[in-house]
């Protein structure tokens, strides 16, 4: 299959390793990967903060870039959530029926990585090897917007060498919430504090998730506390093999 | 006509400008394919009703019609009841002989003080709902005014097995015609009065009857 990477501005700029892992993984599974260089940002940060007018050109851009793609796959549940939940509302706000149509057209072809692998391609074992103790934090948007269910866990359970440990109160938000983490920094920290306590309690070396935004937030505290726990995106674990480890 | 009324209705109509004038309320579809008719057999339903009433920490007894009088007398003795409030229309032949009976009559109703001083009340009921362990009183004969089952600290309620339906939906539908026609006051009772206001730990009995006993009677 020809897969277009929707890498997201956040991963492009801050977490290139995740993007590289996506490429390795998808190519290893026998797919052709392409990366349209015209892509920038899905507009989630603007939209969720209230700068919704500013989102209109970004939605236009997205459908122009990915309109013809066979499948669009992203390593970010929240950016895919933005496309699926709010793009039609942006089109409505723009008062542009053509854009609305284009959005409706493209939405069914946009996927988050784990749902794409498990639900779309029907793959549960990607042949990865990752000999580490890992706990998985299901991000809110993967759970409650995309409803990926246990797709990420199915994939992780089939990774060889992995010691997957359950995260207590896993479904609780980590407290990131985009600008929330800055605007309501105190509340965000209170939430993060509990998440970190649970992660550390598992004794895992690695905390995995489907969103680097939440992982940056969680990882920022893990690092500050010198906890020795590393935040790692799901894609990077799935891309690992005996050769790379 | 009050101006507040005109203003409110005016604001509502202005707020709903986008609703097409020809739209009828029924045009908004409401799915009704939730459970409306129970599937359990009579034995199951009565069993479940007994179990669920019991889970609210009410006392539940299953008896035969012939045991009614003796059981009532026994329950009242066990609860230390000396003065028992009795609603209009409650079958006299079931009542114990050795108690002070406070009869509530239409032309001579018991005062709130009298009820407050009584030790308990005995009533029948209009319906039972197994799914939730709920008794429904509709102020009919043998059930009395609402206040009767409110002020005494002990409520002994009698229900025939045949009065128990399975589901909440069946319960509400049972009263549909009477509410639409006469509109009697209805009280749904699920266990004794309770509160969880302190640290969410449930305490049975705040303002209503603190002890609820239910006699489920077969014929």
């Amino acid at each position: 299959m020809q897969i277009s990477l929707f890498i997201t501005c956040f991963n492009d700029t801050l977490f290139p390793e995740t993007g590289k892992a996506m490429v390795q993984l998808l190519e290893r599974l026998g797919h052709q990967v392409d990366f349209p260089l015209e892509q920038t940002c899905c507009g989630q940060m603007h939209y969720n903060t209230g700068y919704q007018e500013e989102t209109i050109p970004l939605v236009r851009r997205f459908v122009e870039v990915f309109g013809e793609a066979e499948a669009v796959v992203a390593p970010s549940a929240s950016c895919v959530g933005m496309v699926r939940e709010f793009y039609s509302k942006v089109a409505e706000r723009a008062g542009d029926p053509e854009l609305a149509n284009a959005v409706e057209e493209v939405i069914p072809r946009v996927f988050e990585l784990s749902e794409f692998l498990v639900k779309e391609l029907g793959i549960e074992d990607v042949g990865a090897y990752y000999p580490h103790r890992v706990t998985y934090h299901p991000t809110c948007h993967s759970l409650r917007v995309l409803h990926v269910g246990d797709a990420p866990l199915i994939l992780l359970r089939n990774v060889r060498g992995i010691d997957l440990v359950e995260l207590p109160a896993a479904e609780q938000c980590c407290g990131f919430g985009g600008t929330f983490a800055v605007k309501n920094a105190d509340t965000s920290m209170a939430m993060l504090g509990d998440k970190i306590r649970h992660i550390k309690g598992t004794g895992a070396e690695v905390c995995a998730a489907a969103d680097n935004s939440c992982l940056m937030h969680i990882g920022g505290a893990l690092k500050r506390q010198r906890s020795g726990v590393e935040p790692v995106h799901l894609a990077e674990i799935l891309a690992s093999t005996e050769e790379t480890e | 006509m009050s101006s507040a009324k005109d203003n409110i209705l005016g604001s509502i109509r202005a707020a709903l400008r986008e609703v097409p004038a020809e739209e009828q309320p029924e045009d908004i579809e409401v799915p009704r394919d939730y459970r409306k008719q129970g599937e359990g057999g009579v034995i199951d339903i009565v069993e479940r009703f007994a179990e669920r009433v019991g889970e609210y920490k009410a006392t539940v007894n299953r008896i035969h019609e012939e045991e009614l009088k003796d059981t009532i007398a026994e329950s009242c003795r066990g609860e230390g009841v000396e003065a028992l409030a009795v609603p209009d229309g409650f079958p006299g032949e079931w009542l114990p002989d050795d108690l002070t009976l406070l009869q509530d009559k239409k032309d001579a109703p018991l005062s709130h003080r009298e009820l407050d001083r009584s030790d308990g009340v005995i009533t029948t009921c209009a319906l039972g709902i197994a799914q939730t362990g709920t008794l429904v009183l509709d102020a009919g004969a043998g059930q009395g005014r609402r206040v009767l089952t409110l002020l005494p600290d002990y409520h002994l309620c009698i229900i025939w097995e045949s009065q128990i339906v399975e589901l909440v939906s069946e319960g509400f539908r049972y009263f549909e015609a009477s509410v639409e026609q006469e509109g009697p006051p209805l009280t749904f009772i699920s266990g004794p009065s309770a509160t969880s206001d302190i640290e969410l730990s449930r305490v049975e009995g705040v303002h209503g009857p603190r002890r609820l006993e239910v006699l489920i009677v077969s014929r």
Partner: protein
Amino acid sequence: MPEHNTGADWINVDFISVTMKNKKKTPTFEETAKAYLSNTQLRRNIGHATHTIREKRETVVGEMPDWEILREAGSQLKKRVMRHLDDYLLQLEASVQEAGGKVHWAGDAEEANRIIADLVKEQQAEEVVKVKSITTDEIGLNQALAGEGIRALETDLAELIVQLAEDEPSHILVPAIHKNRSEIRELFRKKLNQQELSDRPEDLAEAARLYLRKKFLNAKVGISGANFAVADTGTVAVVESEGNGRMCTTLPETLITVMGIEKIIPRWRDFEVFMQLLPRSSTAERMNPYNSFWTGVTEGDGPREFHLVLLDNGRTNVLADEVGRQTLNCIRCSACLNVCPVYERTGGHAYNSVYPGPIGAILTPQLRGLDDEGAASLPYASTLCGACYEVCPVKINIPEVLVHLRGKIVDRKKREGGLKTKTDPEHVGMRWMGRAFTKRSRYERAQKIARLGQKIFVRDGTISNLPGELSGWTAMRDLKPIPKQTFREWWGDRDE
């Protein structure tokens, strides 16, 4: 002011004047939350309570195979009501009148309080007993009645606790959720003159029972809210646990019920939907102990006079917003509070409103208007985690409304413009990035600028200290610096 200053008749005059004066100036969520976050006892009380009820709810909802259909039915029924609210209100008015009740219309809090005070005075009552009603808290009824020399006595255990403590409710269902048993014992010892009191909830409830029983028996007027009112039959419902609701709606000769205009349901039959959704979502029981349904007045049974006060107080503004309208579906179950990770940590008082939690974060700003700075901070008091929407029994898409309101707030800021907006770092940043994202070349240049610009903050390969607005981030978290190569640069190299 009443002469005998014991127990519940304390009136917090300071509080009233402060709220009146600062009507447009409630503090923001972030300002208030700070203090509550560092209150250990409160964190513990609320954490314990919300987790307890959260688990119970999951169990009782889990035993309903048709839960999702019921949710959809509840949501659609409310939609039906909202889209035809004028007709339903007129229908309700007619059916209540036909059943012997009187109907009053109140555009705002002041009008409602006026109507109620006059009705109480007509009965020459100096004291009224009240069932827990957030609507009456919303309009400040108790304070208004106090101003007329009428004592309004709260009879729900939690509301009594809040009233005796001269405190504010912090939860829709359990208003005293922020207090634990020993705090309540201290309060009752002082205010109810109960020196020999243990801290067992049973004993505390008993103390309240004894105190209030006398009040119930003497009350001439009862005041209640309404959970539902049936347009078709005029039947009003109060759903409760303690029996104080039955006391207030049965014993007094006069009953006054205040309800928001959105509380209507079309027909009696619709209870089969709402009375399954509400108890399981609210107290997490199959059915709560007592539900009272009354239709007007019944001769020889209960009050001789029944008054229904229909309250707008901003609700028609909510109705006018097509996205925000669904907020009016709310049946006040409080399930969204119990699952909210923000509420769990800050408690209800941080919201500065009688409607706390996720539902409050969308209802309060719509009722009060976005020019109230405090109210306008509420839509941001959420991570958009979506837990609230998942449990809402009438499917209010709270995250959607939160984001919608944020949009309105920013649009308003842009319209008003001014120096404050132009120099607001968030505003400047959003505009700048918005522009950068519209063109590939600009975007790639911005990536490079950011990578260069961060240099002054990077120490030992990490960012631990950021200035200004962003200091909130680095107060507890390190920030990963932008790596040397972006993904697209790597991709470019790879292709070559």
